C-alpha cells in the first residue's frame, strides 16, 4: 500500500537561512507570535483590565496563568514546558516557581505542557532549561504571590502591607486571619497582573526551595512502575508498528514481497513509506511499515518481509576507509578559525616540538527507551504522544511534512526514557503519523534497539591533530589545533562539509590556554550518515584531544599534569575568542552574563585535585588523570583513578569531579547529572563505536554496542558543587567532556600507554593490549 504522492514528497521544514549549530530555531519556529498567543490564551485583553505587563520579561512570557493554576483544594499545578528525561526538570521548574510563589511543596503538582509557541523555547537540549527560564519563572511565581496577597487584603479590607504569603496561605499578622491559596485563587485571577518592577523578588537568603536538595517529583512514580514514557502510550483501538528501513541513508525501497509478513499471526498490514529525499532534516527514512495487533507481531512480520533495497549515494561509505581519509585531512593546513600571534614562526623557534593525532568514532545516543511515538487522526486533525525533546519542532515538522495547518496538530511530550540528543529529532513521530493515517486507527511506532543503533542521528566521527612548541623551560609557546569531522549542518543541507562556528565553539575555538601563539583550524569532511547532537556534542572529541594533549605537553616538559594544565589556563581573566578572529556563540548566552572566566576553570581544577589527593603515591598499575573543560557555560574538572592489572584489565575505583555551574537549583540532582554525564563519557570512551560498511551500520544491539555495566562502573564517585552566585549554567551535558581525557591521562600515568584513538577497548576486548608508547 503506497502513501499518496503528495505526502511522499514533502517540503522540507524550513531549515534554510543561516545554518548554525544553534539547536534553537533550527526549524524556524517563530518566536514572534509568542506574545499574542499568550495574551489571547490568558484573556488579559478584556476591556477594563489592565494590559498584562509580564508577556516579555527576560527569558520570555512570565504571565502567571501560563505557568500556575491553583485549584480550590489548594493544589498548585505548575506547567513544565520542557521535557523530563531524567535531568529532573519537573522538579527544578517546580522549585523555581514554588519558591517565589511561597507554595507548600506537598501541594505542588506538575502539568506537562503541549508543544505550543506560547511557552517560548521548548527545545530541551543544550543544557539550558534552567538558564533560559530561571528569571521568568521566578517573576511568574512572585506575580502570582502578589496577586494572592492583594486578593486577601481586599477580602479582609486591610492594608496590603499587613498581609504576607507563607507556604500556601496568606496571613494577616495583626488579626491572625489566614486564607489558603485555594480560597483566594479565583479572586486573585481577576486582579490586574503587577509589573515586574512592582514585584518583591525574594533575595537569595530567603530561598526555600531553590538551591536545596528537594526530592524528585518523578521518583515516587518511577519506583512503582507509574508514569508514561513515549513507548507506554495506550489508546483505544491502538495498533502497533515497526518499520523496515533502507540500510543506507538515502537508500531506496525496491521490490517488496509482503506475503510472508502478512502470513505472520497478528500482522494486519504492510505499508510502503515514501523514500527519503535529501536533505535528511527530521524526515522519516522511508522503508516499509509492518502493522500488527501487538509489537511482537509487527517485529515477527518484519523479520519475514522480503525487500530489495536499492543502493543510494552512501553505498560506498566505509568507516575504516573514512578514518584514513579523515586523518589525512588534519595533516594538511585547514581553514583558520581563531588565531593569535604567529604560530608558524613560534613553532619553528621552539626548543622542543610535540605533536599528536587523535581519532574518535561515531557514537549512538542509545537512550534506554528507544524512539517511540503514537499518532491518532480524527478527520483532518492529528494528535501525537511521543518522547520528544522538542514538541514544538515536532509539531512544525509534522505540519511541514504532512502539509496540514499547525492548528490541526497537537503534540504531547511524554516522559523520555533518556534522550541524550536523539529525541530532539522527531522523525519517528512522522512515521507514526503517516502509518496511522493509512490505517485510520491510532498507531504506535516502536523502534527496536537494532533500529535505534542502525538508523540514528550519530555523533560525528572526528580526527584531530595538535602541535605545540615548548620553550627550553617547558612552557608552551605555540599551540596549533586542527579538527575535522562531518558537521551536523550536513543533516540539514547535505552539501555542507565544513564545521559550523557553533561546533567549533564546542571546545576548539574557545580553548582557554594562555599561550602567546595559538591557531585553531578546521578541515572538510562530508557526512554519509545522519549526524546529530549527542550529550555535549563536539565537546566530546575536542575535549578528548585538547585535554589529552595538555597532558602530553606536560609529559614532554617533564612537568606534573595538573600543574601544567593550570599554567596553560594561565592567570584569571575573561577570554574573548572573537577578539582573535573566532565567531564564538557562547552557547547562545550573552557574554556579559556568561563570560569565559578562566579563573573559574582553574578553581575547579584546584578543588578536584585536592579532593582526589593529587600528587600522592599510588601502587603500581594505578594512576590518576585530570581534565578540565568549560561547556554549556559551566566549568567542570574531573580526576579519574584507574587500576590496570598486569594483564591489562582496566578498572575505575574512584572518580572525583568539581563543577561550577553558577547558581544551582538542586545540588543533589546536579551531582546526579555529573555522575551520569561522566559515566556516559567513560562508557563511550572505553567501548563505544558505531562503524559502517557499504553504507550500513554494523552494530545492532548491546553485545556489539557495549555500555558500561554495574561491575565496570566506578565504585566511588565524589562530586563537589561550587557555591556560586553567578547566573545558572548547564548541568546535563558538562560532566561528559572531561571524562574521556581524564581516563586517558590516568591510563597513561598507570601504564605509560597513551590513548589517541577511541574506543579504548571496544565492544569485545576486556584488556588493554597496546604497548607503552610514551
Amino acid at each position, binding site marked *: 500500500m503506497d502513501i499518496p504522492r503528495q505526502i511522499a514528497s514533502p517540503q522540507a521544514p524550513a531549515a534554510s537561512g543561516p545554518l548554525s549549530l544553534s539547536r534553537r530555531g533550527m526549524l524556524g519556529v517563530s518566536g514572534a507570535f509568542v506574545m499574542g498567543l499568550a495574551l489571547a490564551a490568558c484573556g488579559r485583553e478584556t476591556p477594563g483590565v489592565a494590559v498584562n505587563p509580564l508577556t516579555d520579561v527576560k527569558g520570555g512570557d512570565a504571565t502567571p496563568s501560563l505557568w500556575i493554576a491553583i485549584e480550590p483544594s489548594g493544589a498548585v499545578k505548575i506547567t513544565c514546558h520542557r521535557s523530563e528525561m531524567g535531568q529532573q526538570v519537573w522538579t527544578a521548574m517546580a522549585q523555581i516557581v514554588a519558591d517565589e510563589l511561597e507554595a507548600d511543596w506537598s501541594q505542588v503538582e506538575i502539568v506537562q505542557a503541549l508543544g505550543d509557541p506560547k511557552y517560548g523555547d521548548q527545545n530541551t537540549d543544550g543544557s539550558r532549561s534552567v538558564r533560559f527560564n530561571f528569571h521568568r519563572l521566578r517573576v511568574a511565581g512572585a506575580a502570582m504571590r502578589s496577586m494572592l496577597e492583594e486578593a486577601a487584603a481586599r477580602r479582609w479590607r486591610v492594608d496590603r502591607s499587613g498581609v504576607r504569603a507563607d507556604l500556601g496561605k496568606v496571613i494577616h499578622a495583626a488579626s491572625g486571619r489566614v486564607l489558603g491559596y485555594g480560597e483566594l485563587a479565583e479572586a486573585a485571577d481577576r486582579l490586574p497582573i503587577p509589573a515586574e518592577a512592582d514585584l518583591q523578588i525574594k533575595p537569595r537568603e530567603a530561598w526555600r526551595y531553590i538551591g536545596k536538595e528537594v*526530592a524528585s517529583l518523578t*521518583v515516587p512514580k*518511577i519506583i512503582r*512502575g507509574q508514569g508514561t*514514557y513515549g513507548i507506554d502510550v495506550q489508546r483505544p483501538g491502538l495498533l502497533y508498528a515497526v518499520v523496515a528501513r533502507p540500510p543506507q541513508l538515502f537508500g531506496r525501497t525496491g521490490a517488496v514481497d509482503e506475503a510472508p509478513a502478512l502470513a505472520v499471526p497478528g500482522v494486519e498490514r504492510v505499508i510502503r513509506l515514501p523514500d527519503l529525499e535529501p536533505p535528511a532534516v527530521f524526515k522519516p527514512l522511508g522503508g516499509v511499515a509492518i502493522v500488527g495487533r*501487538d509489537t511482537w507481531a509487527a517485529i515477527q512480520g518484519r523479520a519475514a518481509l522480503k525487500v530489495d533495497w536499492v543502493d543510494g549515494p552512501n553505498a560506498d561509505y566505509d568507516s575504516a576507509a573514512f578514518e584514513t581519509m579523515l586523518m589525512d585531512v588534519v595533516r594538511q593546513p585547514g581553514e583558520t578559525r581563531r588565531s593569535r600571534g604567529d604560530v608558524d614562526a613560534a613553532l619553528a623557534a621552539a626548543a622542543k616540538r610535540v605533536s599528536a593525532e587523535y581519532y574518535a568514532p561515531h557514537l549512538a545516543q542509545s537512550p534506554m527507551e528507544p524512539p517511540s511515538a503514537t499518532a491518532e487522526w480524527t478527520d483532518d486533525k492529528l494528535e501525537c504522544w511521543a518522547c520528544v525533546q522538542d514538541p514544538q519542532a515536532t509539531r512544525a515538522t509534522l505540519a511541514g511534512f504532512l502539509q496540514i495547518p499547525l492548528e490541526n496538530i497537537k503534540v504531547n511530550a511524554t*516522559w523520555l526514557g533518556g534522550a541524550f540528543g536523539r529525541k530532539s529529532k522527531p522523525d519517528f513521530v512522522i512515521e507514526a503519523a503517516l502509518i496511522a493515517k493509512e490505517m485510520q486507527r491510532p498507531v504506535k511506532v516502536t523502534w527496536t534497539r537494532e533500529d535505534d543503533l542502525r538508523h540514528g542521528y550519530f555523533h560525528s566521527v572526528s580526527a584531530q591533530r595538535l602541535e605545540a612548541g615548548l620553550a627550553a623551560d617547558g612552557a608552551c609557546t605555540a599551540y596549533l589545533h586542527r579538527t575535522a569531522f562531518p558537521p551536523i549542518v550536513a543533516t540539514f543541507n547535505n552539501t555542507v562539509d565544513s564545521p559550523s562556528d557553533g561546533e567549533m565553539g564546542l571546545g576548539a575555538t574557545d580553548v582557554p590556554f594562555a599561550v602567546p601563539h595559538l591557531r585553531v583550524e578546521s578541515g572538510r569532511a562530508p557526512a554519509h550518515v545522519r549526524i546529530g547532537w549527542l550529550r555535549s556534542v563536539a565537546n566530546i572529541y575536542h575535549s578528548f584531544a585538547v585535554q589529552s594533549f595538555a597532558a602530553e605537553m606536560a609529559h614532554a616538559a617533564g612537568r606534573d599534569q595538573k600543574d601544567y594544565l593550570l599554567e596553560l589556563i594561565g592567570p584569571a581573566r575573561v577570554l574573548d575568542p572573537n577578539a582573535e578572529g573566532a565567531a564564538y556563540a557562547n552557547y547562545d548566552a550573552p557574554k556579559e552574563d556568561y563570560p569565559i572566566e578562566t579563573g573559574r576553570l582553574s578553581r575547579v581544577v584546584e578543588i578536584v585535585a585536592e579532593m582526589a589527593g593529587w600528587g600522592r603515591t599510588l601502587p603500581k598499575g594505578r594512576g590518576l588523570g585530570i581534565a578540565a573543560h568549560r561547556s554549556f557555560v559551566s566549568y567542570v574538572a574531573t580526576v579519574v583513578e584507574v587500576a590496570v592489572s598486569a594483564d591489562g584489565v582496566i578498572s575505575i575505583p574512584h572518580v572525583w569531579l568539581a563543577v561550577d555551574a553558577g547558581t544551582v537549583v538542586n545540588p543533589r540532582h546536579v551531582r546526579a547529572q555529573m555522575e551520569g554525564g561522566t559515566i556516559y563519557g567513560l562508557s563511550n570512551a572505553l567501548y563505544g563505536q558505531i562503524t559502517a560498511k557499504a553504507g550500513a551500520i554494523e552494530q545492532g544491539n548491546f553485545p556489539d554496542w557495549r555500555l558500561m555495566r554495574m561491575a565496570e562502573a566506578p565504585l566511588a564517585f565524589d562530586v563537589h558543587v561550587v557555591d556560586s552566585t553567578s547566573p545558572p549554567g548547564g548541568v546535563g551535558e558538562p560532566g561528559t567532556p572531561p571524562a574521556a581525557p581524564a581516563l586517558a591521562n590516568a591510563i597513561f600515568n598507570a601504564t605509560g600507554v597513551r590513548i589517541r584513538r577511541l574506543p579504548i577497548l571496544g565492544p569485545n576486548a576486556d584488556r588493554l593490549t597496546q604497548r607503552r608508547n610514551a
Partner: protein
Amino acid sequence: MAITLMINREARAVDAAPGTPLLWVLRDHLGLTGTKFGCGIAQCGACTVHVDQVPVRACVTPHDALEGQSITTIEGLAGPQADAIRAAWEAADVPQCGYCQAGQIMSAEALLRSNPAPTDADIDVAMNGNLCRCATYVSIRGAIKAAAGKL
C-alpha cells in the same frame, strides 16, 4: 486461544499468538507498561519480572510457558524487601530518567531476598545484567546497601 496467567496475584486471560514473549503480553495486551523494552534479547534487564519469585527477562520468555506460575511485575512488587528498596531509592533519588529502574528494582529485590547483606561483588553479579544509560550505578549500589541495612 486464550490462556490464563497469574499476574500480580490476579488471574488474567490472555489471547496472544503462541510464543509471544511475556513482555509484549504485559505491555500491549494487559496495559502493564511498567515493565520496559530495551533490547529484546536478554541483554539489558529493562524487562525483568519475577516468575515464581525468580527474576527472568520477559522479552525472551514465551508467555504460554508460564501457565500455573506466579508472575510479578514492578506494579505488583510488594513485601519487606520491596519496601526497603523503594524507601532507599526514594531517599537517594536513585532514578534519573527511570526507564531502567523497574528492572533494576526487580533485580535488587530478588538479590536482597536471597542475600540480606550483599557485598560489592554480590551486587556486581546480581545487577550486571541491568543496563542504565543514565548511569545511576553508583547510586544503585549505595541504595542496595542502605536497604539491606534497614532489613
